[in-house]
């Protein structure tokens, strides 16, 4: 009962969120509306310093944000900590000691007391930017997903002991998936002998990407796996594990391909070496592009409801948005699967034993 109420509340908040995002712009002309939507979508795809659920404009024109401010952590010759509410969505200048900080285009810059932003020749911001370790929306989401995963799988692990080797509770739903990753992803790609070492990474990465993708589809407006920093981190880990576990055979196949004529060997070596970096790079780009594209398409379709502002166009956009969101649920799982199976494949290449 409590659960279903919570779910209804979340859905309600989401609906209000998407409604309010656009309702305040209904009266503006179309060009301005489209520009605003574009900005809104661009803003959504990026990380943010606050955890906002919804925002609306009051009658007097003041914008009101409903959400939780998050701590901002900067390293500027010492740790600087303040609440993101002080940034006031770029409208205020934060003074900490003798330094002034300002949020400009979703990035914190060091500035003076009047908040001047300098530009260089290429119209880039010339202000200094401190090293930013802020607990942004993305970081909080990552933490939440990690806690959820830990609780979920710890529960599953404990349930085996309690229940005589049988899983119980919600973990029962995830046990077949864990087994699938072991039997269909890890063992066929890495091999029966060595797969155990990589299971922890594969399982964690699969469920992490899947859960992040799924919460990205909720109206909370979280976009973790559609952020290049996150996918870069995941791909980097795959790259590091592949490189560290590469056997002599693996490197030999890269730099001095056996069974090839000498000129071919010389040509192949740089190509193969490039491949070592391209493989994780494609992992990073694929996940990032798929998820952020999904978010952009979804939001565009939803905003089209407000651009059309008539029964046929709006309902068509609604139907499209509905079906795309169903496809996105599939894509969420698919991308997690692809990332995991390709990582397993690369690990498999690295530990493969050839008999010549």
């Amino acid at each position, binding site marked *: 009962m409590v659960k279903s109420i919570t779910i209804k509340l979340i859905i309600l908040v989401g609906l209000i969120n998407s409604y309010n995002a656009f309702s305040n712009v209904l009266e503006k002309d179309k060009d301005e509306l489209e520009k605003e939507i574009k900005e809104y979508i661009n803003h959504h795809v990026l990380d943010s310093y606050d955890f906002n659920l919804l925002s609306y404009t009051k009658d007097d024109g003041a914008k009101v944000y409903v959400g939780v401010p998050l701590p901002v952590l900067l390293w500027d010759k010492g740790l600087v900590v303040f609440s993101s509410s002080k940034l006031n969505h770029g409208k205020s200048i934060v003074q900490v000691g003798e330094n002034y900080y300002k949020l400009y285009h979703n990035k914190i810059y060091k500035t003076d007391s009047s908040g001047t932003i300098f530009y260089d020749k290429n119209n880039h911001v010339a202000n200094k930017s401190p*090293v930013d370790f802020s607990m942004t929306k993305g970081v909080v989401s990552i933490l939440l997903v*990690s806690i959820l995963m*830990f609780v979920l*799988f710890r529960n599953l692990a404990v349930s*085996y002991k309690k229940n005589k080797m*049988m899983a119980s509770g919600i973990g029962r739903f995830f046990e077949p998936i864990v087994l699938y990753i072991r039997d269909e992803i890890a063992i066929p790609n890495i091999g029966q002998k060595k797969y155990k070492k990589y299971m*922890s990474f594969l*399982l964690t990465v699969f469920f992490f990407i899947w859960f992040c993708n799924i919460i990205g589809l909720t109206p909370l407006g979280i976009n973790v796996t559609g*952020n290049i*920093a996150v996918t870069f981190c995941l791909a980097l880990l795959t790259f590091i594990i592949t490189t560290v576990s590469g056997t002599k055979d693996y490197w030999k196949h890269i730099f001095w391909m056996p069974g090839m004529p000498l000129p071919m060997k010389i040509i192949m070596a740089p190509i193969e070496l490039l491949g070592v970096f391209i493989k994780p790079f494609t992992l990073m780009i694929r996940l990032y592009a798929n998820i952020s594209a999904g978010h952009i398409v979804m939001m565009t379709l939803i905003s089209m409801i407000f651009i059309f502002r008539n029964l046929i166009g709006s309902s068509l956009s609604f139907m499209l948005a509905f079906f795309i969101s169903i496809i996105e649920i599939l894509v969420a799982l698919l991308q997690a699967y692809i990332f995991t199976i390709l990582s397993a494949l690369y690990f498999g290449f690295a530990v493969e034993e050839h008999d010549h």
Partner: protein
Amino acid sequence: MEKLINEFSFGLFFWQLLIFVGLIFLLKKFAWKPILDAVNERETYIKEALSSAEKARKEMETLNKENQGIIKKARAEKEALLKEAQQTSSRIVDDAKRQAKEAADKIIRQAHETIEGEKRSAIIELKGKVADISVEMAEKILKSELDNKEKQSKFVQTLLKETNI
């Protein structure tokens, strides 16, 4: 590409790396290892249970086969016994019949022989008696008949007629 680099936030990368690597090790210790161990244990348990069931089934089969063999053997033995008993009984009956027949035959033969003997002696006796009676009668008839001549010649004539030469 420039947009991507612009979008790249070092802070987020740092936290993601920290949290994710931490998560991997935490989950490894507290979740994945126990889960995979439990699943493995369960799988070996199931495998063993299955193989032992299979073994038991095979044992049952051989036992069944043995039982079948024993039953078959017993049935054959029973049949043989029955057959033998039947044979014995029929032989006994046959013997008894034969002996009885022999005894009966003997009795009948003896009876026949006795009857024959009696008959013969009776015939002999009867013959003697008939001869005596006929001689006596002939004597009497001849005495009465041969009193007159006419009757004599008539008698001779009839005798002559009866005897064909």
